[in-house]
Every structure is written in C-alpha cells, then in structure tokens.
C-alpha cells in the first residue's frame, strides 16, 4: 500500500517564557492511502497539536514528517503553503469560514491560491464540490444564513475542492448534534471510498466506530493503535430517522 503520512519520533514543545509544555513526546505513526483514522484521547492529550503538524499549519520541534515520502521539514514556506493548498484539506471544529462571503466563494478560496493548475472554471469546480456535500441549492448563502451542519459541509467542500490526497478533521462534529454528526461522517465515509485518506479527531467513541482504525493518545503519546470494524454512518442515520 502507498504511504501517505509518516511521523518519525516527532516532538512538539510549546515555550511559554521559561515554562515548557511538552505536547508531543516522540510520535511514530504511519498512515496509508485510503485509510480512515480516528484519533481519540482525553482533553490536552495532544490531538490538535498532532493534527496541526500533519496539516502543515505548525512545525514540529523535533523529528521528521514525511508526506508522500517527502521530508516536509526540508521544505520552505512557499512549499509548505503549496501542500496546504492542494495536498491536504483541513476541516476545523469551528468551521473557519470567511464571514460575509458566500458558500461558493468560500469554497473557491483554495483555487485562488493554486498556482499549479491554470483553472478558469473556479465557479464550476466550487459548485461541484458543494454538490458532493449536498449543498447545491445553497451556493450563494452567507455562512450566518446556514445551520452548523451546513457550514461544516461548506468547510468540507472547501477542503476537497482542490482534490487533496488527505483530509484532516479536528473534531468536525464537536459542535453538532447526533443526527447532523452522522450526516457529516457519512460524507467523510463517502469521500474515503474514493480513496481519500481521512484522519479525524473525536472525543466520542460513538463517532470513532465509523473509522477503520482508532488511535488513542495520552499525554503526548500514542498508547493504542488498532484496526476496527467500520460501521456505516449512512445506515445508522437511516435507523435514527426511522
């Protein structure tokens, strides 16, 4: 299988004056193409720290990060930006959409910053991404006119508009109710079937069961990493609605 992400003895310290917070203590992790990983662990165990490094939003203090077998540590700022732009889609707990900007314009954003592809049909690509998350009739809504679930779907559309190989989601359902959460998870499962690798942080075991693999963290360590039998969010959603 093709390796997408690999971390070798990765450490992250936060420096607050004289005080050092050791958020990650030597993480070793391999994730292959097409995997669906749920990262679990208590609050403060380092999940977000890990995700931010995987998403190239932050840099590790020590250790190596290989993305598609390339050592990320050796890249400059522009190359980092390029990976964020067209290799990784990031979905946040708080959606992080641009306010006063329509759904379709939000989804277009990564295309604006893509220098590789000479894309002219930004609107078309953005509309088709929004269609994939079932928002084809909300293209011109502003975020404040959308429900939480809808906003998160816009964020997912934005994450996948540039055909990333990985989608990273840090508690994407943290602000949503059960049914909406299942809805969002079912979108991830659907994307996963199209060979997009998914890494998802969640507090709730009831969400983790939809992954193929569950990683448990405590105090900046991975304490457990096991395969699991994946449930279908779509079917569970149907059951609830009946």
């Amino acid at each position, binding site marked *: 299988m093709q390796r997408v992400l690999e971390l070798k003895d990765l450490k992250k310290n936060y420096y607050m004056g004289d005080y050092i917070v050791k958020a990650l203590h030597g993480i070793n992790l391999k994730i292959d193409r097409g995997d669906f990983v749920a990262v679990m662990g208590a609050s403060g165990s380092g999940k977000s720290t890990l995700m931010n490094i995987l998403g190239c939003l932050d840099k590790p203090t020590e250790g190596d990060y290989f993305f598609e077998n390339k050592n990320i540590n050796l890249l400059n700022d522009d190359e980092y930006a390029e990976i964020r732009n067209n290799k990784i889609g990031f979905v946040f707990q708080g959606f992080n959409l*641009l306010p006063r900007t329509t759904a379709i314009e939000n989804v277009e954003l990564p295309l604006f910053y893509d220098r590789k592809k000479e894309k002219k049909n930004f609107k078309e690509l953005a509309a088709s991404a929004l269609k994939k998350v079932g928002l084809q009739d909300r293209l011109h809504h502003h975020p404040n006119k959308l429900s939480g679930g809808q906003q998160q779907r816009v964020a997912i559309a934005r994450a996948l508009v540039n055909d990333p190989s990985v989608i990273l989601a840090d508690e994407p359902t943290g602000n949503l109710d059960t049914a909406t959460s299942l809805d969002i998870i079912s979108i991830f499962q659907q994307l996963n079937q199209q060979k997009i690798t998914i890494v998802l942080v969640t507090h709730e075991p009831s969400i983790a069961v939809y992954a193929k693999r569950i990683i448990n963290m405590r105090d900046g360590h991975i304490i457990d990493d096991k395969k699991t039998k994946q449930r279908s969010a779509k079917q569970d959603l149907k059951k609830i609605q009946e």
Partner: protein
Amino acid sequence: MKISNTLKIAFKNIVKNKTRSFLTSLGIIIGVGSVIIMVGIGEATQRNIEREIASLGTNLIIVYPGAFRGGGVSQGTGTFNRLSIKDVENIKTYSKFVEAVSPVISSNEQVIGGGNNWRTTVYGVSEDYAEIRDYKLASGVFFTEQDVKAGKNIVVLGKDVADAVFPDDEPVGKSIRISRVPCKVVGVLESKGQGSFQMSQDDLIMMPYTTFQNKINQNRFLRSIDIKSSIKDLSVTQEEIRDILRNSHKLPDSSEDDFRIGNQTEITERATSVASLMTLLLGSIAAVSLVVGGIGIMNIMLVSVTERTREIGIRLAVGARKRDILMQFLIEALVLSVIGGALGILISFMVLLILNNFTNTQMVINYRTIILAVGFSGTIGIFFGFYPARKASKLNPIDALRYE
C-alpha cells in the same frame, strides 16, 4: 495567486466595508483635492500677475534715479546724479532704439470740479506717455507736443477720477482745479481694469510736465523716465540708455551708475517668482494633508490586519503564501488611496469650477498636478500600506487561526 485575483479580493473587501473604506479614503480625497486646488489657485494668481504687468505697457523700460551715494570725491555734491529733463532730451536725441520717451513727475493733489472733491495722483508727462504705458482714450484727445511746449493748462483724467468728479456729465471740455490751478479736461482714459497686485491704474490725472513743473510743483527732478523700446531685446536698449545717461551725467569710468534701469521682464520675473513661491507654499501645505491622509490609511490598515487575523489564518490554511497576503493588503491600501485620489480630483474639479464662476480668475487644472497627485497618492498607499501588509504576512497560520 494572480494579481487579478488579488485585485478581486481587495475590491470585495473594500466594498464589504463601504463606510470604513470611504472614511479611510477621505484623508486622501481631501489631500489630493487640496493639492490640486491650491496649485490651481497659485498658478492662476501667477498668470494674473503676468497679465497685469503686461498691461503696464509693452517693451517698457523705466529709469529711476539712483540712491544718493556720493559717487566718489571728484563729483562733489550734485544735482547731476538725479534725473532731469535734459536726460530725457539726450535720450531722445541720441538713442536709436527708443520709440518714445517721457519724463514722469508726480504728486498727490486735491482736485475740485463739478462740485466734487477728490484726492489723486497727478502726473506730469510728455505727449508720448499714453503710448508708452498703453493707455487708450475713452473720449477726447491726449495732449500734443505743442501743448507740452506751450505748457497749457490741460489734463487727461483716469477713469476713476472721471467717475468720481463727474459722475453724471461728460468730463471733456469741463474745467477742474488742481491745487487751485484751473485746468481744462481734454480727454478721459479707458479703464485698465482692477489689478489685485498693483494699485489701480485708473486713479490718476495726466498733464504736460511743463505745466506740472511751472504751476503745480517746482521740483526739477524726475520721479522716473519711462521709455518704450522699438526692439524686443530690451537689454540692448537698456545698455544704450545707460551709455547715454552716463555721458549726460559725465560719470567717469570708475564710478557707478547714479540711476537704475528696470524693465518689464525683470518686474514680471520678480513678481512671478513671488507668486510661484506662494504656489509652492500652498502646494506643500496641501501635501502635508496628503501625508496625513496616508497615515490614516496605515492606521486603518493596521486595525484591519488585527481585525482580520482569523481571515488571514483561514487564507494561510487553504494555501495562501506569505506574499499573497502581503499583496492582498498592499493592493487594498493602493486601491483605497487611488480611489481616494480619483475622488479628490473630481472634487477639486467641482470646487475650481465654482470658484471660477464666482471670482473673475480663470483657474485651470493642470494635467501635471493631476499626474503628480495621483502618483503621490499611489505612492502613499504603497508606502503606508506596506507596514500593515508585512505585519499580516508574517503571521503564522496556526497563531492566526487561534487569534481571538
């Protein structure tokens, strides 16, 4: 990211914050507007002065008596270092380049006529004076060479005097008394118009200098000699007059001139240099307000960077490079200042149009000023936009996203 996209984003942001964008540009609007208006006013003044000086007469040369400096031991005390009628005669006789010449004597006198009383300047001049100073007659005639030789009691009135003394009647043929000397009015001059720079050229009376010297004021010395050159190159004529006068005054080579020769070009240059200094001054004061406007842009852009930290974080998270963020904020500042500049030009057009309608000046908007103002406001946009833009681009993605 391409510039066109950056421009699009910048425009979107400006439109989304209409009020704030307008207030930000206001400084630039006022700055550019006042630069154009001030320079417009300054240049109009300059042109007015030039026009007024031209109205003094064409190819005009004026000889003044020199400051009395003794001029050397050999000369003794002298009346010869003053200008006299003899000098005028010498110029008339020996000069090749002088078309007309007139002595000028003057004093302020009380004038009574038609039951009215008026105080004005009375000039004793020759028959050529009207031609030298470009005066035209509204009615009657100017006095002739014979009149001057005979020393007749006749006068020509300036427009202001004619209006004041004979408001209802035709002055020609009437009699007036100038310091108790009865004179006959033979002509009235056309108005030269009100000048802002000079005293009115219409508040005067002219009479033959012979009459003036005999009856009004016995002073034999001239206030000036006014000359009209027959050639355009006034310096040649001036040099010739200088030689004639030095001969006439019997000045040895070693001594300085005991007179001063001025010409119109010099007067024009001196006066316009004052006016252009004024233009410069007004322009710089206005430019200061442009700089203040630029600081306003920087201020708002800094606030905007702080306010939009999360937005910057989001843009970085989806792949914006540092230079994309830098460009976005820079272009936003540039667009704001250029729009401000354009509005400033528009407003200054309107203000100048109004001023032109309500005053008799003709202020013209100079394309150089416009290019300068726009270039300047653009530069200010970039200059004052750069610091906030750089600050924005230096943000770390995760720190920007976490910003509360």
